[in-house]
Structures are given as structure tokens and as C-alpha cells.
């Protein structure tokens, strides 16, 4: 009887513990990239390169804005981009070249306005 109770306790607490560990890992390593383009909100799940409890990230390159060099962006927007690049693509460097490369990941197919425009 005693060993049955022990087995039940192991199964109960082991199962709960595993579920908690799984939940914690999922929380730490899963993120949602939110964006807004084509008049619709979009959300995509992704695996984070580094653990963090932050769930929502903003993919501001998937938007209807014009391209602005990173150094000319307001501080708030820069922080959002740095966050997204770090956790989505694993870019930890604050070097302009790497950040721009990370941003191009989203914008590579779209030339900057004026370059192929007659007027």
C-alpha cells in the first residue's frame, strides 16, 4: 500500500514538475512577432535565440513606413528593433552594419523610394 502511494506521489509531482518545466521553457523560448501592414494586424510565433520572459516583440520593418537609417530613428524605435533582432535573429551586436543587416532581413526585396521612380 505504501509503495503504491509512493508511486502515485512520484507520478503526480513528477508530472506536475515536468509540465511546469515545459511551460517555463516554452515561455522563455517562444515569442510572438507582432506587426501591422496591408491594413491588418499580424502575429507570428518564433523560437527565441535567448531566454527571456518577454513574449511580444514588434517587427516594425513589416509596416507601411519608409526606410530610415537606424541612427536616425527615435530611441524608442531603436530599442524595439534591437530587441527584435536579438531574440528573433540572435543579433546581439549594436554595430550599425549588423543591425542594418538584420533589418534588411525584412526589407531586402523593397528598394528605397525614389531610386526607380521616374518622378
Amino acid at each position, binding site marked *: 500500500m505504501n509503495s503504491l502511494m509512493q508511486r502515485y506521489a512520484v507520478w503526480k509531482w513528477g508530472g506536475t514538475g515536468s509540465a511546469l518545466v515545459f511551460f517555463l521553457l516554452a515561455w522563455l523560448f517562444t515569442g510572438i512577432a507582432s506587426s*501591422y*501592414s496591408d*491594413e*491588418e494586424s499580424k502575429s507570428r510565433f518564433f523560437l527565441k535565440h535567448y531566454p527571456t520572459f518577454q513574449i511580444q516583440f514588434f517587427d516594425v520593418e513589416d509596416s*507601411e513606413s*519608409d*526606410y530610415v537609417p537606424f541612427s536616425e530613428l*527615435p530611441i524608442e524605435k531603436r530599442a524595439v528593433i534591437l530587441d527584435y533582432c536579438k531574440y528573433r535573429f540572435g543579433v546581439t551586436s549594436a554595430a550599425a552594419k549588423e543591425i542594418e543587416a538584420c533589418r534588411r532581413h525584412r526589407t531586402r526585396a523593397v528598394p528605397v523610394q525614389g531610386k526607380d521612380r521616374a518622378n
Partner: protein
Amino acid sequence: MPKEEQGRAAHWATATAEPNYKNQPPVEITINDRAATRQAIIRRVRENGMEFVERSDWGAYKNRPDSMVNDWHYRSIAIHHAGRSAACGPAALQLQEIQSKHMERMKADDIGYHYAIDCLGNIYEGRDIRFKGEHVRQFNTAVIGIVLLENLADPEEGGDLTAKARTFLHTIGFGRIPEAPSEQRETTEKFIKILREFFNISVLGGHKEFPHQTKDGKICPGKVGLAFVKQLRTRLALSAP
């Protein structure tokens, strides 16, 4: 009239020219013609018997003016619909929702469009016309953005889960066929004519008609919206983007 204003009025009523002014260096007077033009557009709309609702009247959130970019010599107009989840309804609430999404998800400085037109044909001011919009990816310079506050996409447009759900609902008899109401159509045409009085507009297009927009699989302003834009373009003798 407050005392300060009385003093100012008295100054203008009684001031005289400086003595010997002909030999003085010229005095530079700057006129904010862009602010005056914004106001003149509003006046022209009202003179034409249409309702114009300014930002403060629909309860716009505060924008971020420090990072907004000036723009002025507009040559194109881009027509948008409000997305597949939109429908004719209370415009002020719709605009607040759109502005909130633009500022939160795109980290835009304000609502991206310059003007909005609801289903009753009322015109709403979006982003101040003196600032560049954020409504056509990488192509916002010199483009005025006008959003028609409803959905103008056919159920199957988009080809994603939303499109499948809409098509299914449509098949079993739910969901309406998108159509721009006549009041909205008339106002849009009149308003574009008014904008052409102030700017040298030569191009009119739906959002996805602008260069490089379809690469992202864009559907705005929907098939119904695009058909309307094409009609307008023919009637107003404007070019496609």
C-alpha cells in the same frame, strides 16, 4: 475680449508706419502657408456641403511630432480600405483603433493616413497634411493617403485562413458582398477634386498598385476598392502609379 487681445487689436488698429521706413532695411515676414493651406482645404470641403471632422473632434491620440517628417509637394493619392476585419460603423472609434494599431504595432508617429472617409460620406482628418504619411511601404513621399472606412475585399482575397473562413461564411449565406456606398463614392470624388486645387496631383492608385507593394502579397484596397479607384482615375483623367 481678454485684455491682452484688446491691446493687440488696438495696436493693429492704431499703429502707424515707422518714420523714414523707405530707408530702413526690409523686414522679413514669414507666413506659414502650409498651415493656411491645411485650413483652406477644410474650408473648401465645408463650402462644398460636406462634413469635415478634425483630429480633435474624433478624439485622436497625441502624436509624436518630434520624429515626424515634413512633406508637401504631393503628386499622388493612394486609396486604402480599412482591412478585412472592418465594416461600416462609428468612424471615430474605427479611427482611434487604427491609430492605436499604427502607433503600437508599426511604432508609427501617428495614424498613417492623411484623411479618412466613412460610409456616410463624412471626411475625417488623419495625420496632419504637413507631415509625410506612413501608408505605402517605402513610397510615402509626396503621396496623400486616404482610407475608406470599411472592407472592400472579396471573401476569397488573401488566400489565407481569414479568406477561407470568409469564403465559407459567404457560401452558407453569412457575410455581405463588399460595396462602397454611393455617399462615400461621391465624397471621395469631390474630395480628390478639392485636393487637386491645392496640389499638383497627377497619380491616383489603390495601395497595392504602388511599386513593389504586391511582392508582399498585399490586397488593399481589395478588388471592389480597386475597381472604384480605376473608375475614378478615368473620370478624373489621372494616371496609374
